[in-house]
């Protein structure tokens, strides 16, 4: 069980510092890990119950209690539909739309490392956990490069992307005997392979991402809109950029389960692009992008189930369809909106009557 492994690893690292604490710490961390996992499984059980209930009310075949994997896939999809556009909004408006792609490909390297370690030393850790770790390291790496060179440069992003994927394919081919079987699920995503364990990992990622954005939304917005002014006003811009790319790495790995490495970045970008067309305010665009993403995810999963096709591809196609509709709606809105123009008020600084002072030639 992955949580136990993480707890054990953590305990053994600490044991180097102070061996006398090993036993108590290990049992303590193990207990916490079991507790967290237990809580998550309980949440999952409540979700099954809710889905069963929806099935009995609606009679939708894809919610049949015999297909627990569909219940988990829908839960994962709903979470992805919230966190991907949430993070994507901040990325797209910084012209960082492609970082999701780069991180997804390095996450694939993380998956390969996880599978490799499991095969070689029987680590028994979920490949999604190693993927999170590797993708977050790559994210920090990209961010640090950009801090040193003062610009996000697409060349270094492309290099990180291909390095990640190359490392992944190499590791997998190295172990071709036992490993080639499972790779498709990571490349293209799969509804039926969402295990309770990976659903639990996703719930943790979801809580971390939504919680972090909820706390730091002011700072993230300021840094996204006007990085220099944010820096002048005392916001540690580099730290928020680092947080942002690490959250992106988490989203990418979380969404990878149903979207796959190759299509995961679309969820960060397409709903946000659609929301940008029709929204006026930033908070509105956040809400709209989440709604559009949820629409794409649920429609996509349904079509994938009844049509027997890959969910990731369908979800992206539905999202792009929604995006095209949003462009049309945005055009209609702007044509209707242009008719009304508010009057620009005069300057109301108190001590000086500037309106009489203007003597421009």
């Amino acid at each position, binding site marked *: 069980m992955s949580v136990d492994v993480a707890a054990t690893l953590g305990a053994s690292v600490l044991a180097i510092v102070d061996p006398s604490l090993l036993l108590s710490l290990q049992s303590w961390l193990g207990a916490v890990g079991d507790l967290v996992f237990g809580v998550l499984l309980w949440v999952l059980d409540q979700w099954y119950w809710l889905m069963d209930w929806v099935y009995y009310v609606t009679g939708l075949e894809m919610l049949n209690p015999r297909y627990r994997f569909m219940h988990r896939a829908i839960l994962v999809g709903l979470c992805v539909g919230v966190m991907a556009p949430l993070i994507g909004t901040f990325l797209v*408006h910084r012209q960082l739309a492609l970082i999701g792609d780069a991180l997804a490909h390095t996450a694939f390297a993380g998956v390969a490392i996880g599978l490799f370690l499991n095969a070689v030393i029987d680590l028994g850790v979920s490949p999604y956990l190693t993927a999170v770790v590797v993708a977050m390291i790559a994210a920090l790496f990209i961010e640090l490069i950009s801090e040193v060179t003062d610009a996000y440069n697409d060349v270094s992003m492309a290099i990180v992307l291909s390095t990640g994927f190359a490392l992944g394919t190499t590791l997998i081919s190295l172990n071709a005997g036992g490993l080639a079987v499972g790779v498709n699920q990571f490349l293209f995503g799969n509804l039926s392979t969402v295990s309770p364990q990976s659903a639990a990992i996703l719930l943790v990622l979801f809580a971390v991402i939504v919680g972090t954005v909820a*706390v*730091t939304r*002011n*700072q993230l*917005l*300021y840094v*996204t*809109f*006007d990085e*220099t*002014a*944010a*820096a*002048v*006003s*005392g*916001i540690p811009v580099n730290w928020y950029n680092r947080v942002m790319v690490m959250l992106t790495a988490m989203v990418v790995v979380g969404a990878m389960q149903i979207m796959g490495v190759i299509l995961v970045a679309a969820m960060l970008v397409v709903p946000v692009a659609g*929301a*940008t067309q029709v*929204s*006026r*305010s*930033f*908070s*509105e*665009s956040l809400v709209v992008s989440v709604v559009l993403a949820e629409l794409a995810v649920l429609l996509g999963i349904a079509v994938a189930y009844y049509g027997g096709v890959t969910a990731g591809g369908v979800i992206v196609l539905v999202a792009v369809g929604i995006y095209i509709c949003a462009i049309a709606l945005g055009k209609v809105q702007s044509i209707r909106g242009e008719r009304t123009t*508010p*009057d*620009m*008020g*005069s*300057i*109301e*600084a*108190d*001590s*000086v009557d*500037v309106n009489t*002072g*203007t003597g*421009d*030639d």
Partner: protein
Amino acid sequence: MSTHDTDSGSAAGTAEQTPTTMESDAPATEPVIDVSEVTFGYTATPVVEDVSLTIDPGEYVAIVGPNGSGKSTLMQLMVGLREPDRGTANLFGERAARFDDGERVGYVAQQASATKEMPITVREVVKMGRFPHVGFGRLSSADWTIVDDALATVGMSGFADRRVTQLSGGQRQRAFIARALASEADLLVLDEPTVGVDAESVDAFYDLLAALNAEGITVLLIEHDLGAVVEHADRVVCLNREVYFDGPTDEFVDSDALARAFGTEARFLGEVDG
């Protein structure tokens, strides 16, 4: 063209010599900006060399200079976005790079650099001025009152719910001024704010700056448009790597600092009043 090649420490052509010794205790009226013998370079060649100047509360100072003269770099040193290689840069008596009262400084960039296809309303932009005050929290109703007052001050209340991308250049710059006002800044730093703004809005923009300056806000203007500078600023700092002139605007017009800093072809773009 440079008057000296080594770092001898002499600031030739500087009208106002600031004391070279650091005073540890701030005087009664603490200078807003105090840079002393500041040198900075992105590479081995300095972009800003041996610059010393002090800006007191309530001043209206313009920094002029040709392209690549280091005026934007000097501004970044002053507000602590960069650390000087040599010398000291103080902001409100604190080391600029460590300054943590960010809400006291309002920053307005070139409007071209702020142009993004981001869905955000004018009110949301002005709201950001309150972020240094509220931190991770929510804006209180008092904060929102300050935001709306700032919008009213710059005459943009009617545009509060407009998307920023739909505004003209001049309107957008007013919104950014409002953000600085909402942050209750004592110092307004503007980096070539009228680039890409139509002439009519430019006049209104400078009127707004004058009105805010009259209310006691210190204005630091980085500007390439010499006509605008001599018309509006009280004090001019002419920079081309080093300070060529620092003094009242009238004296600047009469001096030869411009020709020396810009080369021979420079002339005032606008009509100069007495």
